[in-house]
């Protein structure tokens, strides 16, 4: 009786083990989905403020446990929260060493000063600068991520960052707030 039960358990263990082994082969996950999921949360400014040469390398570093989740200022607090949720770790406030969140802005080239050196074109991580050698350059505003990587290489300092203005197009309804009003003073009544 004892032996029979041992055989049954052994048999079951073998069968289930084989099944698991086959399943592991059949449903093998290609690549590292965690990197892609982290990358999807990152704002893709490719600014390198985190200390890595782009959003994908930073995502890879987070996945490998080399980088912390609070190194991305453009992602802001919401980004850190999303990363903490995804990775199941504690939320941390943004690390000020890597910079502070700024309002969304785009680069602007002063066309009178530009000498057409193409240095900014080579620096732009998303090819958002149009121009050729010895010809004026200009920013494709809709594709500029506001990473500021073009500012440093410019030899004549003709690039500046311009914050996006609020227009009726991008205007948002505000969160309902109720103004606190001072009531007229009534000396006869004392609030209970």
């Amino acid at each position, binding site marked *: 009786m004892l032996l029979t039960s041992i055989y049954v358990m052994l048999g079951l263990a073998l069968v289930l083990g084989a099944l698991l082994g086959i399943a592991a082969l059949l449903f093998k996950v290609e690549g590292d989905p965690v990197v892609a999921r982290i*990358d999807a949360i*990152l*704002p*893709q*400014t*490719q600014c390198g403020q985190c200390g890595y040469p*782009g*959003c*994908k390398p930073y995502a890879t570093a987070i996945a490998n446990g080399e980088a912390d989740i609070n190194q991305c200022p453009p992602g802001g607090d919401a980004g850190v929260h999303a990363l903490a949720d995804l990775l199941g770790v504690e939320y941390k406030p943004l690390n000020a060493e890597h910079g502070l969140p700024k309002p969304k802005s785009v680069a602007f080239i002063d066309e009178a000063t530009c000498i057409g050196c193409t240095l900014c074109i080579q620096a732009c*991580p*998303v*090819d*958002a600068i149009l121009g050729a050698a010895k010809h004026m350059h200009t920013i494709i505003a809709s*594709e500029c*991520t506001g990473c500021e990587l073009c500012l440093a290489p410019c030899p004549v300092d003709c690039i500046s960052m311009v914050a996006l203005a*609020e*227009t*009726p197009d*991008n*205007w*948002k*309804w*505000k*969160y*309902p707030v*109720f103004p606190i009003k001072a009531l007229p003073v009534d000396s006869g009544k004392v609030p209970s």
Partner: protein
Amino acid sequence: MNTIIQFASKLIKNLATNTANDIHKFHGGVHPDGHKYESTTRPIAQLPIPQTLTLPLRQHVGYIPKLKVKVGDYVLKGEMLAEAEGTVSAAIHAPTSGTITAIEEAVIPHPSGLPDMCVTLTPDGKDQWKPLTPIDWKNTAHSELISSLRTSGIVGLGGATFPTHIKLRKDRSSAIHTLIINAAECEPYITCDDMLMRERAEEIIQGIAIAQHLLGAAKVVIGIEDNKPEATQAMAGASQSLTNAVVTTVPTLYPSGDARRLIHLLLGVEVPHHKRSTEVGIQVFNVATVLAIYRYFAFGEPSVSRIVTVTGNVTTPQNFEVLLGTPIPLLMAAAGGAKPDTTHFVMGGPMMGFDLPTLNVPVTKAANCIIAASPALFAPPPPAQPCIRCTRCADACPVNLQPQELYWFAKSDNFEKARDYNLFDCIECGCCTYVCPSNIPLVQYYRYAKSEIIALDKAQEAADLARERNDFRLARIEREKLERAQKHAERAASAKNNEAKPELAETEKTTSNPDAVEAKKAAIAAAVERAKALKLAAANIDAAKTGTDLPVQAESTPDNTLPNIAEAKPDATTSATNEAQAKADKQALIAAAIERAKAQKLAAAQTGATPKNTENLSAKVKAEIDEIEAIRTKAQQMIKSKAPD
């Protein structure tokens, strides 16, 4: 048991339809005070031409139209100021004749209170129309009518301001079988459609006939709320001339004027929430819009004016036909002026309208009603209390949403959840806010959540684009690196071959990479120097003979010079050791050939043509050239195909 339930439900259904005269009641809805009487006692009045007209470019849903005028231009009434750009867009016309005095940013009637681009027109008082051409819509092709309508500037005048020409297009998957004319005008205070129907029913019916013709709709249903008996009578009388058209009164219940609610009321059809009504063969037009269509086709008049109700806390509430761009203070003055206790002004109805940031804004195509608000008419809401989950809002919601859930999600910035609960089906009718016993401004929360979600979606789209472009850039850099490495390897290999078989390597090199061409040039330059030196020496020995022989021989040399040089070069060096006469001849020949090659190269560089060494090429090089040529032609085709846009 089942049969009993079925029987009972059938009985109830029959009872319901019998009592409501074939009206299919929608869920929810509220009964706010109508306040329609005040502004219907006087006929529609015309307003005199004001001193200045301000026309915002943003007057409709969709893309901003493209300006066609500049400051100082004189325009006639009805002349186009800005033309529709993109699919969903509408033109803007001069409401009267006059001069364009400014094109600048000014505050527009928008809840944001932000300035936007406006055209300012100073009228000359003549009110002179441009030459108008009526359109024979019965005998003109459909596509022609639609493209003509695109220049008319007509948009939905019920308040949604969706460009009308798009709604009349015929390229839809399912054909329109029913045209619904929305004359419900369910919002309190607004009476512009009511007065329009009372006074201009004939013209409206003509417009309906045009819309019916354009859509090919078999049936027309005109839906009017039962609080407008005069309008119903006028429309019923005028609609006799239409085929297969019925005027149906619907019970007064806000928001029966919403297109989907009206479709449900009149036809009993629930349009699926992710579909448009045209996908189930129904199109809805406002009465004022069909009237504008009629005026455009019958007289050629573009959209330059509209009817505006001025009511609320004013002395004489009335409807006015005003030119677009008229300053609203003038409108208020025409209605006897706002009473002293007026606190603010509302554009649109009290349920769905918004507070004007300032009264100094112009009338736009969306402005159906201006209400002067006072504490007596619109008591400021008592402070909001916590939600008690009574779900009265859910009972009132005409779209069958769960407003209390949406409120929780919006309040806690839980946007994904709000989206899951179909926040975007909310029509912002305000029924939930109206019934809320805790006085919570629910619609404000939904508007906040909606605009946050839209902004987040836009940011996500931008991030995806940035990721794609960054990936492409990295791939490009990698590819260029590889190509460079390959070239270096090739050059190293060809240099090795060069030592073994110099002549073959030479031809390979010239065409395979630019560095080889540079090397070749240097070789040519060196050859030229050597040739010159030899020539000088030869000239010293026998000047006369070379002088007469050279031109004839140079003339006879073939055009293809580069291989010649390659062949001639070893000859030149060997012949230098031979007798002086033969040497001098040959050197002079080479020098002349080099001069010609240089001239040719210069000419080619000036015309921009690239040298084509298409002979003596290896198969690999030829394949490369073919590939480049293919890319070049493809690029040219792409440029050509993009040019018409």
